[in-house]
């Protein structure tokens, strides 16, 4: 696969604004031949208004212009996780560039940049580490050869450094821009030599992120900042009851609001979920909001107004009796459980939650008279947008331009494009540029939400205090039923049992299963997906088992890890950095948890202080993340710090509930997120052994938070929490 990509790498001579340029990239299968005729300035202008027009928009990832200007394209949208720095850095390192020697541009889902222009699943670095380094290395080798030809010296006497090639014996040097014309005539090396990791200048170092100066000065352009001449603003009234239908509406009062121009219907589509809303179009956003307030809409709730989350939770509890579809069956669980000296059972529950990124969903779209479309938005999935929108609206892909902005948070929410479909729908109706902004209330109430997972667990302990039998049955609605029309419900939905059968613990008899539940409310991936709830039940129950076995929870876990494993190393590191074996003063407690899942592996020890018989305070979080290889240690730390804060929010703050078919919560007052005064100190340790196995960064810091906290609370107070969220001030 890798070689194939390198072989297909394209190189071409580009005649553009600054003459010949060296252009390198990985082409995808549909674009073996790259054309160089697309000139697009809006792209550059949108992401970074301060930079001069680049005027280029090509398949390749690197452009070296004759002027010496170097541009690296980033295909992984920056949503806070640092890809604006880390992805171009993979190329820059091999190309011998310093961070200040290149400009970064975000791609917009153009076919030529490949089908994986997306940020999600903690995938960006781990899946591109080698390929992008090869892009940079190829360019470096071509520039070295070009210099040696221009100077008529052996290439072996030359080396690259800081965007220049240096001739070692004479000390003379030449900038990359002056080598472009010669390099343009060379073959692209098929197997470039990668740098030795010990020679890295950028990779593995805490290099400052290039987006941060923009973000401390108000210059970073987010989707909501799109400014298109003559645009109007839209606010959409959606059916408050999920599954309801629009009957009719009366716009009389709305049209009397100064600034309101039009009221139109608009479709929202999220996978198989579809709803019609009513949009108020106005000269300014405030007028759109005021017009929406006095809009009279009649909905047909279709019976969905009877839905409420407590009844739903009871139905999930009832379904726990059902036989689950087997996810893993090791040994003989029934026999081993029957023979166990100590048998324990527990039931765990988790809530619905909203993503609540600080930038509410929004999108600006312009359907022009010539039936071309321009979109400005914050999205995690430029490729998906460009796959979906042209087809959905009957346009040719080449007639659609997407400008991917910085995202004011993603957390999985911006992997969905429902709000983009809405804005484009409005643009098509209005035939003028329209900026559609969801209010915070829309963003909180409309979903898609993280699904709740309920867990029925059983464990059997032997006389020696060993875990002999283990069972984890998950009961939950599934995300997939919204993404695909016909989910095969005879098979386990792997995404809903994430990790439960793949922890490193050596358990002789284990039977895990899944019970499907239905729901009509849209569900979606939320940072660390189902691991964010399953780790809670799985690792709290491990704690219960440890106590049942009369063992220290850390020792109990390590005893189940006789073989060498990443999990074992994570726990050992946690034990060391948290001084696990040093007893805490009375009234304090510590808890441990780890979780390995698709994105990677993290573990935490949390310390709490008992304030009263049923309240605690979080003192400290020790976090370990296992990566293998690290691109930017400071970014990794930041991601883990942030994941802990988000994990604590999910553990202790109100999630989302439903009553009469509607979302109960509406804004940060009733579905709060952690604030600075509640934010515990986090000490992050990175395990990076430099191996070839690279793990994800953005998500693994989250799943261990809730179980480590609940386990710490048990250690401090004796209260066992089996339902998220828990109120630290009133543990009940």
């Amino acid at each position, binding site marked *: 696969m890798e070689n194939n990509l390198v072989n297909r790498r394209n190189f071409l001579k580009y005649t553009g604004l600054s003459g010949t340029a060296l252009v390198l990239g990985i082409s995808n299968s549909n674009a073996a031949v790259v054309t160089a005729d697309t000139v697009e300035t809006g792209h550059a202008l949108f992401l970074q208004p301060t930079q001069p027009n680049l005027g280029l928009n090509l398949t390749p990832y690197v452009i070296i212009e004759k002027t010496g200007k170097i541009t690296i394209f980033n295909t992984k949208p920056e949503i806070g996780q640092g890809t604006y720095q880390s992805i171009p850095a993979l190329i820059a390192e091999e190309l011998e560039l310093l961070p200040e020697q290149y400009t970064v541009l975000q791609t917009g889902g153009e076919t030529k940049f490949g089908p994986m222009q997306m940020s999600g699943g903690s995938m960006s670095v781990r899946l591109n580490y080698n390929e992008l380094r090869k892009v940079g290395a190829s360019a470096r080798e071509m520039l070295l050869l070009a210099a040696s030809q221009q100077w008529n010296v052996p290439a072996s006497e030359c080396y690259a450094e800081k965007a220049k090639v240096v001739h070692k014996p004479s000390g003379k040097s030449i900038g990359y821009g002056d080598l472009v014309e010669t390099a343009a005539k060379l073959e692209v090396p098929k197997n470039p030599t990668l740098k030795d990791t010990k020679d890295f200048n950028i990779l593995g170092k805490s290099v400052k992120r290039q987006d941060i100066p923009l*973000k401390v000065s108000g210059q970073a352009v987010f989707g909501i900042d799109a400014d298109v001449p003559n645009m109007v603003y839209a606010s959409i009234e959606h059916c408050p009851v999920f599954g309801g239908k629009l009957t009719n509406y009366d716009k009389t009062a709305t049209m009397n609001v100064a600034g309101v121009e039009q009221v139109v219907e608009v479709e929202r589509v999220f996978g198989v979920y579809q709803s019609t809303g009513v949009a108020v179009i106005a000269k300014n956003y405030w007028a759109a909001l005021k017009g929406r307030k006095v809009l009279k809409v009649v909905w047909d709730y279709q019976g969905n107004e009877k839905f409420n989350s407590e009844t739903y939770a009871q139905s999930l509890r009832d379904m726990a009796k059902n036989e689950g579809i087997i996810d893993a069956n090791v040994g003989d669980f029934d026999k081993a459980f029957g023979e166990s000296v100590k048998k324990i059972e527990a039931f765990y529950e988790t809530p619905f939650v909203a993503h609540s990124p600080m930038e509410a969903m929004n999108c600006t779209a312009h359907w022009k008279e010539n039936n071309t479309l321009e979109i400005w938005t914050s999205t995690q999935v430029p490729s998906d947008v460009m796959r979906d929108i042209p087809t959905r609206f009957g346009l040719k892909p080449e007639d659609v331009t997407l400008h991917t902005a910085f995202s004011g948070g993603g957390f999985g929410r911006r992997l969905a494009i429902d709000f983009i479909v809405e804005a484009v729908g409005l643009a098509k109706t209005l035939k003028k540029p329209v900026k559609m902004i969801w209010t915070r209330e829309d963003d909180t109430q409309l979903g898609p939400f993280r699904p709740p997972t309920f867990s029925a667990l059983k464990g059997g302990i032997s006389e020696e205090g060993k875990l002999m039998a283990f069972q984890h049955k998950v009961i939950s609605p599934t995300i997939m039923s919204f993404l695909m029309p016909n989910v095969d419900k005879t098979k386990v939905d792997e995404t809903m049992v994430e990790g439960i059968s793949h922890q490193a613990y050596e358990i002789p008899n284990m039977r895990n299963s899944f019970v499907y539940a239905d729901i009509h409310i849209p569900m979606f991936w939320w940072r660390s997906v189902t691991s964010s709830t399953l780790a809670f039940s799985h690792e709290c129950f491990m704690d219960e088992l440890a106590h049942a076995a009369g063992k220290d929870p850390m020792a109990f876990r390590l005893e189940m890890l006789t073989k060498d494993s990443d999990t074992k190393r994570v726990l050992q590191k946690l034990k060391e950095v948290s001084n696990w074996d040093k007893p805490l003063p009375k009234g304090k407690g510590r808890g441990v948890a780890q979780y390995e899942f698709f994105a990677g592996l993290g573990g935490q020890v949390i310390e709490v202080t008992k304030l009263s018989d049923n309240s605690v305070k979080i003192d400290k979080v020790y976090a370990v993340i296992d990566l293998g290889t690290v691109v930017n240690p400071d970014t990794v730390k930041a991601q883990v710090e942030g994941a802990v804060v988000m994990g604590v929010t999910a553990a202790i703050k109100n999630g989302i509930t439903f009553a009469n078919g509607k979302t109960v919560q509406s804004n940060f007052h009733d579905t709060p997120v952690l604030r600075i005064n509640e934010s515990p100190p986090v000490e992050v340790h990175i395990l990076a052994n430099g191996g070839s196995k690279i793990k994800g960064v953005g998500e693994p810091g989250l799943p261990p938070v809730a179980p480590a906290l609940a386990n710490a609370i048990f250690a401090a107070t004796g209260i066992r929490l089996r339902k998220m969220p828990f109120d630290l001030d009133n543990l009940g």
Partner: protein
Amino acid sequence: MKEYTLNINNKKIQVEADPDTPLLWVIRDYAGLKGTKFGCGMGLCGACTVHLNGQAIRSCQTPISSLKATSKITTIEGISTNIDHDVQKAWIQEQVPQCGYCQSGQIMSAVALLKINPKPTDEDIDTYMAGNICRCGTYERIRKAIHVASNEMKKK
């Protein structure tokens, strides 16, 4: 619709708007200064924080009709010309932002805090900054950066 004159970042601007239009949308869509962000519309998150005569206010809760032509409004774009305010420099040094969306508001609050309390304790910071939400969870770095800025400002 009414005509208003505002002073934003020492620049006079004339605006025709409804009296109840929040300053937030005036700053963003009339004055074209996009650094100030919409977060919640209820004064709960602090993303829209700007200064009114040096004091931090939530611009989403400030109707344009409550402002005088002499009121000095300062936004993130107005605190420095070269990203060189001590608070901005501290934010860069500590690599505070992740997604960055809330950070204009965080910085405007921090600048206002340091004006009234040049040497804040962790507790002072927690109390003052509790109105600014960061969903990415950059709080520890914010705390650290405020101390860094405070030390830098003291040297001057």
